[in-house]
């Protein structure tokens, strides 16, 4: 009796499981049989990009007789991509920032792409330079971004020529109670190297020297060099104990909001701030970030969004076809621009949209002097210590002490 119960239970349980399997199994089978035999191309991007890519990916799939899947990765795209690639569950095409390249290459996660001379000429030269690493082009760039000075034209009708000019104007506004802050440039408790870099470069500092081939040289760390210390002295003069233009209380969260609330006339930010400014109905204009009087021009970092061919993708030939021959068409570049308004790299697409969006040309103009974000993996060691040195100096610490400590921390982490 007992044995019979056990047997009945087992058989029924298996039957139930089997019925469940056949029921669920139908769904994945149907698309496979309907889809062409060609296999699948998987593309990963962030949420906005993935949505914009979808129609074009589908069109590409139809033209080539393959299924194309666009998946949105909301967070930690780079780490997710590297880890998934290593496990063999990564995509065929990845969309991301160009300063990932060094890390992606050392992990063997992406392959170089070979563009024709004609294709290279159709792209903005500084963007091509940004995706070139160790003499190889690793991605197909499609949009750039860089910092600019955004000013409230009601408070500040003319663009300041120098940072001193800006401080003088803003102090006047502050004295007249028209604004409560001099400059909205995010610093935060632990500093922000990306936003500090234009002033740092204008004052003569540098992060890495360059090799003969034009790449950044990890063995030439400029942070504790005398010119960088001199640059931080100039930044300190703008800090909390000086002009009060740079403050740790202005953070990534409140800098744009403070500007759109009309509490400061000047904001140093990128294209992503424009949406908020428009929403707040602020009358604004965009100009290059001003440098120090008598100093070098202020150079913001240039960030470039690119398409990469995953080295461990299952369908590399198709991925290369998509990235090198399809992404370089203006229609796709315009659609990506509409998903998020940043200047397209493809000259034809840029010409097409700049007429309707005057901000684009201004951002491109502000980025004329921009230097590509260093893509070498060693750059990852710089951000944090450099930011902390910036924050300490703005609070009043000795620039030499802070930069020497930062350089020591950075060089301790750079592999030979």
């Amino acid at each position: 009796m007992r044995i019979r119960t056990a047997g009945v239970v087992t058989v029924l349980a298996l039957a139930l499981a089997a019925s469940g399997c056949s029921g669920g199994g139908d769904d994945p089978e149907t698309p496979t049989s309907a889809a062409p035999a060609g296999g699948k191309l998987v593309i990963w991007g962030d949420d906005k990009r993935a949505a914009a890519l979808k129609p074009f990916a589908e069109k590409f799939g139809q033209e080539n007789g393959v299924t194309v899947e666009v998946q949105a990765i909301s967070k930690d795209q780079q780490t997710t991509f590297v880890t998934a690639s290593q496990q063999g569950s990564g995509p065929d095409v990845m969309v991301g920032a160009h300063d990932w390249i060094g890390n992606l290459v050392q992990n063997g996660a992406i392959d170089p792409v070979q563009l024709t001379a004609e294709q290279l000429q159709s792209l903005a030269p500084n963007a091509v330079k940004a995706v070139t690493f160790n003499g190889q082009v690793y991605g197909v760039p499609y949009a750039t971004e860089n910092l600019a000075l955004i000013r409230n034209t009601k408070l500040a009708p003319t663009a300041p020529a120098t940072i001193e000019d800006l401080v003088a104007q803003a102090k006047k506004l502050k004295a007249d109670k028209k604004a409560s802050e001099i400059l909205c440039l995010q610093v935060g408790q632990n500093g922000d190297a990306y936003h500090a870099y234009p002033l740092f470069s204008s004052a003569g500092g540098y992060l890495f020297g360059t090799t003969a081939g034009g790449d950044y040289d990890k063995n030439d760390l400029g942070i504790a060099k005398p010119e960088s210390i001199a640059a931080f002295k100039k930044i300190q003069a703008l800090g909390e104990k000086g002009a009060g233009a740079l403050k740790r209380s202005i953070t990534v969260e409140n800098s744009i909001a403070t500007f759109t609330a009309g509490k400061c006339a000047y904001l140093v930010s990128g294209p992503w701030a424009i949406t908020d400014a428009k929403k707040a109905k602020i009358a604004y204009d965009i100009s290059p970030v001003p440098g120090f009087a008598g100093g070098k021009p202020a150079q913001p970092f240039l960030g470039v969004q690119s398409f990469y061919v995953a080295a461990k993708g299952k369908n590399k030939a198709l991925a290369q076809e998509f990235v090198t021959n399809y992404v370089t068409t203006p229609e796709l570049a315009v659609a990506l621009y509409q998903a998020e308004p940043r200047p397209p790299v493809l000259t034809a697409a840029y010409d097409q949209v700049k007429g309707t969006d005057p901000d684009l040309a201004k951002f491109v103009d502000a980025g004329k002097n921009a230097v590509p974000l260093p893509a070498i993996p060693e750059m990852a060691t710089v951000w944090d210590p450099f930011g902390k040195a910036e924050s300490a100096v703005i609070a009043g610490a000795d620039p030499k002490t802070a930069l020497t400590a930062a350089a020591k921390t950075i060089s301790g982490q750079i592999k030979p």
Partner: protein
Amino acid sequence: MTALLERETVPAEAPEPSGRGGLAGPLVKIALLGLVAGLAVWAAFPLIAERAWPGLAVLLVATAGLFYLYAGPRHIPAKYLIPGTLFLIVFQLFPVAYTAATAFTNFSDGHRGDKQEAVVAIQTASVTRVPGSTEYALTVATTGDPATGALTFLVTDPASKVVSAGTPDGLTALPAGDVTVNAAGRVTAAAGYTLLNGGQASARSREITDLAVPTPGGAIRSQGLSRAYEGKAGRAYDAGCDCIRDTTSGKTWTADGEVGAFVAADGERLAQGWRVGVGLANFTRLVSDSAVSGPFARTLVWNLIFALASTGGTFVLGLGCALALHSPRVRGRALYRTLLVLPYAMPSFAMLLVWRDMFNTDFGLINNLFGLDVDWFGGAASARIAVILVQLWLGYPYMFLVATGALQAIPPELSEASRIDGASPWQSLRRVTLPLLLVALTPLLISSFAFNFNNFNAIYLTTDGAPFPADNPANGATDLLITYTYRLAFGGSGAQYGFAAAVSIFIFVIVAVISTVSFRRTRRQEEVYS
């Protein structure tokens, strides 16, 4: 987590018909076992596809074991123990073992895969276009079946429109009469060849990427499905010397199995390395590297203070509220209790960020409300006070809840009896209620301590370790061991999983020692009061 799952699972399996009884028991059993079988089948297909035979064997044994155990009426104790044990293995033991194993490797960015993968990555990355070479239009074709036949690249020289057939044996020009070429230069028909369409070609993607047609200057490779280029590998692996050789300069990088990288004579390393065992190196780095060990003692002391203050502070505050609301004379107790629990109901992630902004010097609510000008996160003492205040606010509702529960479990006769014996309310609380409460709450206090000891979010989302002294950007005044070592392991040159694993084992040891000692003391205390 495991405990929770265990509790949920066991009763579900519990209705044990033992031969007679109702129909509900066997039905539930059949449904659950069916679910198990379904899950097993679902998990088996990917394992088979990946040829992961050990994994498949484990799956089969586990499923068969579960069926054997639950289909029959015997092995009652095992029926209760097995689900919990399985979850314990999957969610606790396996991660612990994996972490421990990782701690002895150099697993990090640049050292993720094996040596073969590193060699492939180095060679692929070194292929460059031969300067001045032709950019060909490509059509993939075959002389046999589109799905299996040997592949041929039909490449068109864009200038002369001459079509050549490329195979692993080399390039041969095809007579112009045999092929039709479209405006873009791609072959649309060729005598003796079957052209692959996009779908057919992408199904053989790997073969297409791997095909290299040798030429005098290098090799013709595909770039996508419609273009080909003549490229030359700048670096090649030489098995004879176990090294990578630069084909133009002749420089060599020899494999170093100890660091998992190709290293040149001048010390230069190639970026693409591989994963190797490094023995105790990650642990010795904890002790020997002055950047790591230097601020260690100071961080540990603050970490202990933080955990004690967070746990003790929330306990005192929570217990105080619970005692106040325990008295039946308080009106609207339900309302008060609901209000007190509110901070607990809000997501702590968001609340930590809100608190961080409230402590902002110029725009923060706290300074604005009280007319202060305190640079909260700028000074060591104020930053520490601030993070503990935040912890108090976040943590006391939990203590209030458990203390309320424990208070209600103490029979009111006890305090009544002590009152009749002439004890003051304070004495009654001190001598009767509190000892009984502590017996129930001490294990919770210890686990709360262990949690706060590693309370990563509380620091990472508020101060992120600030303030940092000007001469040390790696270790800040509010850094806990976990945030400090997180910065060391992940903030610098990419992710260093091996080192991070070593650190977490180290922190685990500290927490384990503290907890064991506390539990010992609790047991003695329980013996006294029970």
